């Protein structure tokens, strides 16, 4: 650990802990997941950087949305995302999450994921290589350092809009809104 790192640890231990303990929720949303096992096993060993998969959304703080999102999956993704404890970070994986990618004209996949949940960063490509996941992780570190990985704050702030978009596609959802919008605004104002 060099001096620079040490100073960062002393200045903002919370932020550093969030950076070096990215526990990813294990959800194989799309075909991008094929590169997740190599990433977490012997060849690339993401555990070196504290990136490990966790069993449930409650224990995680990183959501790798690996690839195209069908309507049925979107429901599960929203549920999972809302169950993750804050602060939480999302990374869209592959071109399908950006604009639909190869399935831009499919009747069952949504095209732009960030209309429904906030995304902190995207990895381009189809299929992104394991190295790209590491680039994303290091980039996420920078974002966390600069307080720019604020997807969860945006979600709270614009929850009404997000919820409206979700209901446009999914119809009625089985669970009530997790934030009362006024409450959400108040919390945001208080914490800045």
């Amino acid at each position, binding site marked *: 650990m060099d001096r620079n790192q040490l100073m960062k640890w002393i200045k903002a231990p919370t932020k550093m802990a969030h950076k070096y303990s990215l526990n990813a929720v294990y*959800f*194989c949303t*799309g*075909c991008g997941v*094929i590169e997740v096992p190599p990433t977490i096993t012997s060849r690339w060993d993401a555990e070196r950087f504290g990136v490990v998969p966790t069993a449930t959304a409650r224990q995680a703080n990183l959501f790798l949305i690996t690839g195209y999102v069908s309507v049925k999956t979107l429901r*599960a993704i929203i549920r999972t995302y809302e169950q993750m404890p804050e602060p939480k970070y999302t990374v869209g994986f592959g071109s399908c999450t950006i604009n639909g990618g190869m399935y831009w*004209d*499919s009747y*069952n996949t949504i095209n732009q994921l960030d209309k429904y949940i906030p995304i902190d960063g995207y990895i381009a490509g189809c*299929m992104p290589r394991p190295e790209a996941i590491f680039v994303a992780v290091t980039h996420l570190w920078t974002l966390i350092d600069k307080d720019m990985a604020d997807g969860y704050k945006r979600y709270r702030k614009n929850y009404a809009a997000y919820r409206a978009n979700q209901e446009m596609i999914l119809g009625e959802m089985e669970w009530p809104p997790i934030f009362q919008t006024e409450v959400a605004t108040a919390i945001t104002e208080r914490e800045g």
Partner: protein
Amino acid sequence: MRELELYFGPQHLGMVGNFSITLKVEGDRILEATANPGYLHRGFEKLMEGRSWIKNFPMVCRINLVDPDHMEMIYAMGVEKLAGIEVPERAQFVRSIYLELARVSSHLFGLWAYANMLGFDTVSNWAMYHRDLVLDLFEELTGGRVYHIYVWPGGVRRDFPEGFTDRMVSTLHSIGGCVPDYDTTFFNNKLFSERARGVGVVSREEALAMGGVGQVIRATGMKYDVRKVDPYAAYDRVPWEVHTRDDGDAYSRICVVRDEMIESVHMIFNLIDAMPEGDVYNRVPNPLKWKIPAGEAYVRCESSRGELGLYLVSDGGEKPHRVHFRTPSYAHGLAILEKTLVGANIADVGNIMMSMYVVAPEIDR
């Protein structure tokens, strides 16, 4: 009496792929299992009807992420049959080698998933590492790690590069050198066999009645393999064996996978020895304006999980009229799994599912 409905997937560590099983449970016994697919449904077959024959090649491999190469192969076979295109002899050999490599990589992925289900991290890490070595070979050959788009109507995209066969042989040798390690730690591990024997038993009658293929029926002692029954590529040019086990349980299935992997490596060596010189590619007409005469075809090949079929209909236009894949996981995941899980222990759901090697995107398409 309160019923318990337990969701196994989609967001579940025991679920490889985006799939869900709804279990109705009493105690730790499963009373009823309902497969709930569709999380990965993209309507591939509909999308392919809107794209020209050649543009579908990048599409088709994405149906199955763990074994995309057989998807390319089956589509190329269908197109070749409809358009009446001949494939050069060397290309047949190259295709066979390529597909067997794909089978090894896919089986190693299956081993990862299966060991992972049992919490056997060590073996799953090894398997994934060895799969990566195979992926390196693919990357050298085709330029892609996962999706290769290497098989082409009329042959393959390019011949083996200089020295590729030597590197392939040495890689396969180094993986093969670890087979004894796998055997001692995994296949012959007493605790493992206790865990896998007698679990998820599918009798031969059940398997056949519900359209089982691949390891599921080979584990019941049935020597059914499309590569033998309906040979394609160069599988009838070299000697090889179909491996079977007799018990029909999870242990037999995973052992069939192990034997097949070893057989594939031997087959690759034999294919390399027998490979003739020559072209690997027959020219096809301008792909952008390619019209294929009206007709229909059903082709099949043996993917890493069993028989893979394609029903292809052309109405004489630039695009296919109907594409329908018959994927092995379809029968395994929707019919056989539901039946086998009834009466099983909840601890064995992942165990049974991955021993059948159910791959979700194949089912959903």
